[in-house]
């Protein structure tokens, strides 16, 4: 979570984390039902604009983080090229063949649509992840959604534990390695290994958890039903502005594409069954 967050004073950083989640939700649902290449493409451009301009995230960092998503999308595309449902490929012209495989035009089209859709859906979450500090997110959940704070703080502390546990795991692994215990393959050794690693990790996790609990109790955690907050996170004017402009721009994009006939069929599947 930490390596996503990009700390600056951009417009997005000032927003309530929740508005960054709420704004893209309708688009998210809509995109799932659009089977053309242009709509996802338009939203990819829009999201990138939000990240780079409104979030002031350096373009290279954006590329770096979205690279795995891109690779994932491209592999979907490649998969589609060779394995499209036969009722779709029927009648479509063959683009080229590799050995026994024919690559049809419709496969390229369907593959691109699906790949772009997945890419668009995944990067819709990035404006949030790039510009939201985890503890701010927790705070906004507690304050705006009225979640019990005891529970949410538990989640937050757990987040703090993750990097600690990772370091710990690496230490244990090298500690066993210097004893001449090699990690071997095989199912039996897998169970043996799991046990060997998990006991010291668990013992330590329990100890650290106990200490954290003491430290929290020692500062009156859970004294009252409610607690006050130093930083109030509310829905401010800029949050409403962000959400409504997000929806307005999205609506313009959708209407333009629809009237230009570039939206294709609407439905969860590419081409309906039994066509």
């Amino acid at each position: 979570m930490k390596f996503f967050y990009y700390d600056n004073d951009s417009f997005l950083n000032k927003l309530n984390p929740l508005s960054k989640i709420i704004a893209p939700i309708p688009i998210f649902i809509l995109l799932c039902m659009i089977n053309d290449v242009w709509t996802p493409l338009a939203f990819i451009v829009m999201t990138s604009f939000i990240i780079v301009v409104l979030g002031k995230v350096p373009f290279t960092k954006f590329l770096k983080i979205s690279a795995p998503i891109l690779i994932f999308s491209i592999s979907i595309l490649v998969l589609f090229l060779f394995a499209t449902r036969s009722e779709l490929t029927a009648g479509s012209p063959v683009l080229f063949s590799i050995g026994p495989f024919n690559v049809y035009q419709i496969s390229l089209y369907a593959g691109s649509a699906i790949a772009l859709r997945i890419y668009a859906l995944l990067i819709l979450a990035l404006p949030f992840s790039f510009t939201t500090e985890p503890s701010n997110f927790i705070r906004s959940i507690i304050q705006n959604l009225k979640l019990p704070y005891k529970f949410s703080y538990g989640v937050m502390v757990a987040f703090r534990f993750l990097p600690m546990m990772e370091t710990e795991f690496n230490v244990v692994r090298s500690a066993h390695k210097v004893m001449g215990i090699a990690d071997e393959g095989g199912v039996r050794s897998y169970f043996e290994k799991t046990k060997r690693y998990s006991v010291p990790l668990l013992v330590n996790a329990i100890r650290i958890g106990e200490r954290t609990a003491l430290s929290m109790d020692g500062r009156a955690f859970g004294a009252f039903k409610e607690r006050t907050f130093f930083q109030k996170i509310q829905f401010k004017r800029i949050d409403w502005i962000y959400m409504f402009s997000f929806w307005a721009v999205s609506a313009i994009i959708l209407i333009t594409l629809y009237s230009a006939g570039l939206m294709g069929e609407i439905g969860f599947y590419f081409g309906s069954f039994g066509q």
Partner: protein
Amino acid sequence: MIEVANLCFKYEKGSKHSLNGIDLKVREGEVILVLGPSGSGKSTLALTFNGLIPHSFPGEMSGMVHVCGMESFKTPVYELTQKVGIVFQDPEAQFVSMNVEDEIVFGLENLCYPPEEMEERLVEALSKVDMLDYRYRDVYSLSGGEKQKILLAALMAIRPSILIFDEPTANLDPMGTLEFFETVKSLKETDKHTIILIEHKLDDLIHIIDRVVVIGKEGTKLVEGTPLEVFDEHASMLIQEGIWMPQTALLANKFKENGIEHNDIPLNIQEACEYLKNFKPHPDSLKDESPETVTTDNSNLAIEIRDLSFSYDKNKIIENLSLKVAKGDFLAIVGANGAGKTTLAKHMVNIIHPPGGKVFIEGKDVLNIPTKELSHKIGYVFQNPEHQFIKNTVEEQLTFGLELTGCSPEEIESWLDSTLERFRIKPYAKMSPYMLSHGQKRLLSVATMLTLGQDILILDEPTFGQDLKSSRELLALLDSLNQEGKTIIMITHDMTLVAKHAKNVVVMNAGKAIFSGSAHELFKNEEILEDARLTPPPLLKLSSCLSKYDENWKGLSTPEEFVNALKSANTLNSQEGSP
């Protein structure tokens, strides 16, 4: 402020008492030092003051605890915690938030303070620990000492009248410790806080302490009194129980044993200096120190490192480091946190793979030695012994290595017997390694690393979190292993250990070895000590303070050396008479 009468506590029914009949009165503005071996219930006592015992811990408590006029039994925890704040040992585990500001206001938020007042208290608390510039910092970017200061500020924000420090510097390097102690000192000077310290290695802080309370293994109060009373009259008992004493008091005690007279026990360096400056030390008291000849003969090298560099995330961790470790050496690697000590040691056992032609074990490139063979040559003891516990009982833990090599059961049996005996863990042979005490866990982890007849032993901070008695046992063991011809390499912060045990020292600073030579040479070189953020052992400070009066004091760093210097001097100058 605090009144404790006949306090008993045990964590589980039927188990032994953690606290047994403790009586204690703490007055306002007092600074109390609580001493005791590990497992003696010091931390338990602290937890009864802020109400976490009995409210948050299951267990059996009897007796009475009054804190600021409230009876702890009948008062909710959050009321007591507003009066009593505790800084614990592990800075990492105490943090709740990811940045400093959130951490400071955490307690205030729980107590439902309005934001305006939080702001005021936040600024006040941070300025008290002199960390106002750190307000918007990330917790990850802080050093250990800084973390402890922030946690202290987080407690100060609640404005408790009593502050308890439960071994707050146990996880810090010497400089971090010093930094934290300075803060504690300034608190005492400015605010007249009531402070309860649970600590050892307090040479820098002893003069602010009003009263010392010693708790024994059984959870009973052994002694209570002013530092002078406790460290003078009860010195032999403290030494026997393995309880910390100021180094200068220890020195005075040694003098007494050797018939060198003194009046009052000196509790700090100034006092000791005042007292010793009238003595004439023997000029050649350090001459028995035989300078270790650096062997260039390659057949005699245990480990050789040639011009090693290592970077991680563009940060240079090790830079052009060369090092030769002769067979049979007792080498200490010292340096501040993050100087690259552990990284260097990890290269020696190929946990971090060095490039070819950089690290040689007994003349062979470490890359060309198979993991199995390497583990027969070098034992590497990790900082936390538990990381290397892989079997269910102590016995299995010790023998599994030998079983893999195909030794006969009789051989294993006799080896096991002698090892359990030597490491004094025989009664626990059938127990789980996790059930041992801190000290025993450490001994077991060292023993595990010797099962295959390893000739080189690398230890990463072996005395970390150990009380005085177990550290001493461990070091005595290492000394005897070294005498048997084993090469010992020890990463440590503890300069007193270095003075006493190491033959050679490597000082690391920002990835470079800035010094390599004998401990005595190092101690004469104040510039290096300062550069590497090392704090000299207290007795070395004494000797450098004394060297203003007589050059021959220079470089003495252990009680034995001081005694030697005076003993031989006294016999020489007996006709001139003692001062």
